[in-house]
Every structure is written in C-alpha cells, then in structure tokens.
C-alpha cells in the first residue's frame, strides 16, 4: 500500500534514463464508489503547475499502464510513455 504523498514529487524517468519531470499529481477516474488511478501528471516546474500559475491542463499525463516500476526516489516509465 502506498500513499499519494509518497508518489508526489518523485522524479519520473524513462527506462533509458530520460528525465520527464516530476510527478506532481495523479490523474484518476471516479466511477460509482471507486476512484482508480489512471495516470501521472508530470511537469517540469511541479510547484508552479500545482499552484495553477499556468493552466493546470498544460502538464503531461503519463498513462499508468506505462509505469514500469517504482523504486527509491523515482518512478520509471516506458520509453514510449509520452506518445
């Protein structure tokens, strides 16, 4: 079991080591009595984007299926994650 706070702020990198940014939020889908996680909200300036200084929709959403593993201080996603 993880917590949302433990996933936020982690670096998001592709398997080949490219840094996509930081995870500043999780995209979810609310259906009936279930809230499922569908993706990561990744952005360079995590704090600014969370504040909504730029429009909150401008960050990239990496679908959860593209997550390969979660380790240490980072989240590793597939190389083709942002396509």
């Amino acid at each position: 079991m993880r917590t949302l706070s433990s996933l936020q702020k982690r670096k998001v990198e592709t398997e080949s080591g490219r840094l996509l940014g930081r995870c500043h939020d999780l995209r979810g889908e609310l259906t009936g009595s279930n809230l499922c996680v569908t993706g990561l909200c990744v952005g360079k300036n995590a704090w600014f984007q969370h504040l909504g200084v730029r429009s909150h929709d401008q960050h990239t959403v990496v679908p959860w299926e593209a997550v390969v593993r979660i380790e240490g201080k980072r989240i590793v996603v597939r190389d083709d994650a942002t396509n």
Partner: protein
Amino acid sequence: MNKIFGLALGILAAIGGFVDIGDLVFNTAAGATFGYQLMWVIPIGVVGIIVYSEMCGRVAAVSGKAVFDAVRERVGFKAALGALVSSEVVNLMTLAAELGGVAITLQLLSGLPYRWLILFAVVGFAVIIWVTSFNWLERGFGYGGLCMLVFAVAAVKLGPDWTKVGKGFIPHITQNNPTLYAYFVIGLLGAAMTPYEVYFYSSGGVEEGWKPKDIGLNRANAIVGYLLGGTLSLALMIVGATVFLGHGIAPQHLGTIALGVGDPLGKIGLLLAIVGILFAVGGASIDTVFSGAYNLAQFCGWEWGRYRHPKGAPRFAVTWLVLLVLAMGIVMTGVDAVVLTEYAVIFSVVALPLTYVPILLVANDKAYMGRYGNGRLANGLGLVYLVLIMVVALTAIPLMVLTNAGQN
C-alpha cells in the same frame, strides 16, 4: 429600502472599525515626524485593503470557503503550514498590542491599575464573545468606534495649512532622513493592509452566510466603508502633524494621541477620542483573536465559526480563549504597547506575501469561483499590489534595523 438601510449600517460599522492600534500609532507618529509628507501613502494602503478584501469576500460568497480553507487546498500542505505558523505568530503579537491599547484606554478612563485592567479586558472580551452573535460583535464595536470621527473634526478645527496637506498627497521622497521616511512608508502600508483583516473578512463572510447575490452589496459596503474609514487615518496624520510636529512631541503613548483631539476640542473631544479608541482597538482585538482561531481551525479541518456556537465548535472556542490568555501573558510582562505595535506591524508586513498570494490564486480559480472569478480590474490591481507587497516585505526588517524601529 431595507437593503439601503442595511448597507448604510454596514458602512457605519466599517468606518468605526477601520482604525486599529497600528493605524493609530503609525499615522500619528508619521504626522509628528514628517508632517503632511506621507499623506500619499494612506490612499495607497486603503485601496490595497479594499482590493484584497473584495476578493476575499467574493471567494467566501461564491465558494463558501474562507481564505485559509482555500490556502491549504490550493498551495499545498507545506506552504500552508508555513503560512499558518507565521500568521499565528504575527497574530499573537498584534493581539497583545491591541489588548495593551484597550487596557491603556480603560486606564485613561478609570484611573485603575494597568495590570488589573488587562485582566478585566481579557475576561470582558471572553464573556462578550461567548454570548454575543457575530453580527452584533461587529456592529457593536463598529458603531462605538464612530466616536473616532472626533479626530476628523479635530483635524479640521486645527486649521492645517491645506495647501501643504494637498502637496502631501503627491508621492515624493524626502531629502531629510530618507531611511526613516521609508520605514514609515512601510509601517503605514503594513498598518493599513494587516493580514488578520483579510482572514477575518473572508471567514466573516462565511459566518454571515454570504451568497453570490450578496456580492454587489458587500462590494459597496467594503469600498465606501473603507474609503470613508481611510479618512480617519488621514485625520490622525493631520492631528499628528499640527499638534505634535509643531511642539516637537513624539506620541509614544495612546493618551498623548488622544490629547491631540483634546487640544482643539477640549474635554468632550478628549473623552470621545478615548472612547473611540477603546471601541476601535477593542473591535480590532476581537477581529484579531478570531482570525487566529479561524486560521488554526481551517488548517486542521475543525468545525469553526461563532455561528456554530461554542457547543458546535469546541476546539475553535478553546483556541480563541487560549489566544486571549497567551496575549494577556505577553502584555502582563509590561512590554510597552506602542513598541509592541510597531514590531507587530513590521512583522506582519513580512508575512504579507504569504497571505496575499494565495488569495489572488484562489480568486482566479474557476473551480472555486465559477463565473465570478477575477476580472481584469481585480487582477490588474491585485498584481500591482502583489509587487508592492513583495518589495515592502523584503525591505521591512532591514529598515527596522537601520532606523532602530523608528527611534532614529
């Protein structure tokens, strides 16, 4: 017709409640030190508090949330915790200063010992807040504060050189002692735009159950009320300039400030001035202690508000009681109320950005505001004041150190 009557009453309460101990101390001292040269700062401060109060009121009316509720949601836990700690520290200092002011005016009226009057004042406030509704708390102290209008009368009666007064409204830098001048600019702005006012105003909106349809009326109330209330600050500076500058007196005591009215208007004027100060500073004490309780309760998610009654919001009630006791402790140490006021104002200036930035963010957020979000005027003014606040916040402590808290 009923609405207009209600609006008029609201405006009167806003005028009477405008001045607090920071305004009293800084405006009079500014007049006593620099004459009319700092008049131009007052309108800037007044417009600033109008702009941000209007935003807070709108946020409360549309989203049903007070500022601090929205702060934690919008800027995140860490920043909100920082804002909470800094606001509580500054709040407590301000509350102690206001309580000291109340005790001093009670002493001027009764001649009883200061420390007993501090206890009396605190117990009095505790009882009054416990039994009085939010609406009557605001109105009661607001109407009593209308006695402060005697300062406006005095200002006119003192027959200042109105050309000089007018020239004071043109922003300029003085040649003689610019650092002290800058210190007073900061102090005057800080006294006008204190953080506790916006926190209190927004929570007050939720207490009074404002809805979007109330926005227009509340906007009018704030604008007219604060503009007219601002004339009291002008009056204080004029009194300071005509009575004290001429005689080389530095008003270090509230009694001295009241004497500024006694000079042209005699014993009755003096009495009204002291009573006015009592209600204005007393009302400010209540606003301040509530602001401290609101912030803590809203950060933690507790039930809050005078409208819930102590039974409905026990932790909130205990919080404002504890804050009163802590502030009493500070005042009992014998620290000078005027000195404490200066420190409280300067420290709240430093905390201003952390207060105002979230307000601007939330007032623009469609999720909270729907179609009532900031228009171009609110955003334009909001941003201009934000820049001003940043500059002021950065220079406040250095200037305080350089001028030895205005004792230069």
